[in-house]
């Protein structure tokens, strides 16, 4: 893991009426890492992620991607900038096939006249690519032409993750990817996330699941009261201390130095 900063945010503020969701939050994502974002309910982690993925526009503050200032007005802007998001409810059209879902909104057209005049889709090519991507990430689903709704929860999650990984150029953001999954399927997804990271894509991961966070994250960003409370090193700090920082039982000043991520 090198020190290059891929994505950065400073002083983000977001208000919803009287409620202040982000109160000058900072954020930093380094190349090749898995950064877990944790925080209690109302801590501002959802709002932070939404600001980074273009789902909401912050009232104040700046976001930089590879050092450049960016202003995302919609999720599409973020996507165009190479940031892919895996939403908590997966955002898949369950009645459609895996291959169709992978290319949803980014469909490939046939060459020549069939593609430009009749606007005909190149289904064989999309199918082949889907198979390739899934194999690349070692996802073991046999047929790309089965409907997503025939898959188990974990398999669906893999499809959503594979979709993000297939098209992301810079960052992959995941919102509670292992929530509602059993042990075996949860591990399957974690393995997949590692492979995404190994392909060179940094991953931002929101999770409530402490064991999973500790298993997979390189650093842990703790959100509290709309700000960044601390960035922790999962290899040094204990799970219970992490929870204490999250709830405010342990104040950031009291965290021993080696528990902070460098």
């Amino acid at each position, binding site marked *: 893991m090198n020190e290059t900063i891929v994505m950065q945010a400073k002083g983000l503020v977001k208000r919803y009426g009287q409620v202040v969701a982000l109160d000058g939050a900072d954020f930093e994502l380094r190349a090749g890492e898995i950064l877990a974002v944790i925080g209690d309910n109302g801590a501002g982690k959802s709002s932070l992620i939404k600001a980074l993925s273009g789902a909401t526009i912050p009232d104040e503050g700046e976001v930089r991607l590879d050092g450049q200032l960016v202003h995302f007005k919609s*999720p*599409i802007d973020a*996507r165009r900038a190479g940031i892919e*998001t895996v*939403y908590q*409810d*997966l*955002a*898949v*059209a*369950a*009645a*459609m096939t895996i291959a*169709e879902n992978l290319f*949803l*909104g*980014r*469909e490939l*057209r046939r060459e020549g006249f069939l593609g430009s005049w*009749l*606007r*005909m*889709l190149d*289904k064989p090519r999309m199918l082949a690519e889907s198979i390739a991507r899934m194999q690349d990430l070692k996802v073991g689903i*046999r*047929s790309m032409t*089965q*409907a997503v*709704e*025939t*898959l*188990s929860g974990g398999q669906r999650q893999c499809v959503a993750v594979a979709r993000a990984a297939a098209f992301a150029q810079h960052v992959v953001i995941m919102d509670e990817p292992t929530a509602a999954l059993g042990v075996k399927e949860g591990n399957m997804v974690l393995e997949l996330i590692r492979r995404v990271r190994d392909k060179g894509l940094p991953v931002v991961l929101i999770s409530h699941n402490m064991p999973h966070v500790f298993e997979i994250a390189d650093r842990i960003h703790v959100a509290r009261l709309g700000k960044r409370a601390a960035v922790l090193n999962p290899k040094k700090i204990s799970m219970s201390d992490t929870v204490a920082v999250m709830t405010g039982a342990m104040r950031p000043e009291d965290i021993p130095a080696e528990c902070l991520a460098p």
Partner: protein
Amino acid sequence: MKDKLAPVLAHIGTLGPFIALLAACIFFATQSPQFLTGGNLSLVLQQVAVVGVIAIGQTLVILTAGIDLSCGMVMALGGIVMSKFAADFGLPAPLAVLCGVAVTTLFGLVNGLLVTRVKLPPFIVTLGTLNIAFAITQLYSNSQTVTDLPPAMTALGNTFVIGGTEVSWGTVLMLALYGLAWFVLRETASGRHVYAVGNNPEATRLVGIPTQKVLLGVYVMAGLFYGIASLLSVARTGVGDPNAGQTENLDAITAVVLGGTSLFGGRGIVLGSLVGALIVGIFRNGLTLMGVSSIYQVLVTGILVILAVAADQLSRKGTR
């Protein structure tokens, strides 16, 4: 083996209507010798052409988990507009037809805007436009049928002979439109987006598909199809009838449901709606040939609708 079976089970929803149609044809063929003749079957195709084309538009709407209750009345309005423009103002037939289709497409636009911009439920919106279209039709036509139409306008009702059987141009148009709709819905991105919007509108929004534009487009296209249906209706009866379309309203929805398209959106094939329309037409034709009262046709249609929805649910039991 199980993997091979699963997609077949899933297709019961789509295969069911074809099987039902086939079964009905076989049954009626045994009941009367005139049923399975080319002439009779060509006749049924002509009889279902109007509902069939309306059902294309309705399929598009239902695929997005919406519904268009105004389809029949908008069709009637289109018919009155095009026939009156030709008969009263002496407009040449193609121009008058264009005006009629423009009016129905406009109604589609209104429906679409109310659903997408004002965010009203399609059921409510189209319930309103149903009444508005009906009233405008009656007021404009003064509740009189419009006669003395130029032959060019009714030309689609003319027939040509193919292999000893008379086929009408209207039938050919209907089949061509179904082919076109099938292609677009299956093989183009816009078509697939219609399915996606119906299946999970939030997901389509998040992946960057302009959901509202897709919805609006669907209602506008539906209006266009209703306009074409009104031309077919005028060509078939030879008059502009202000009371046309009243049963076509529900008949079109019945055809779509019988054809296996789910009212919850995102599932179904447009060819199924043609099958659905044919099932109703075959029953009506077959029962008349058998000398059975039309009330039984209504009864059978009701039973088939329930079976169709049940089959749709059953076919999805294979999924988790």
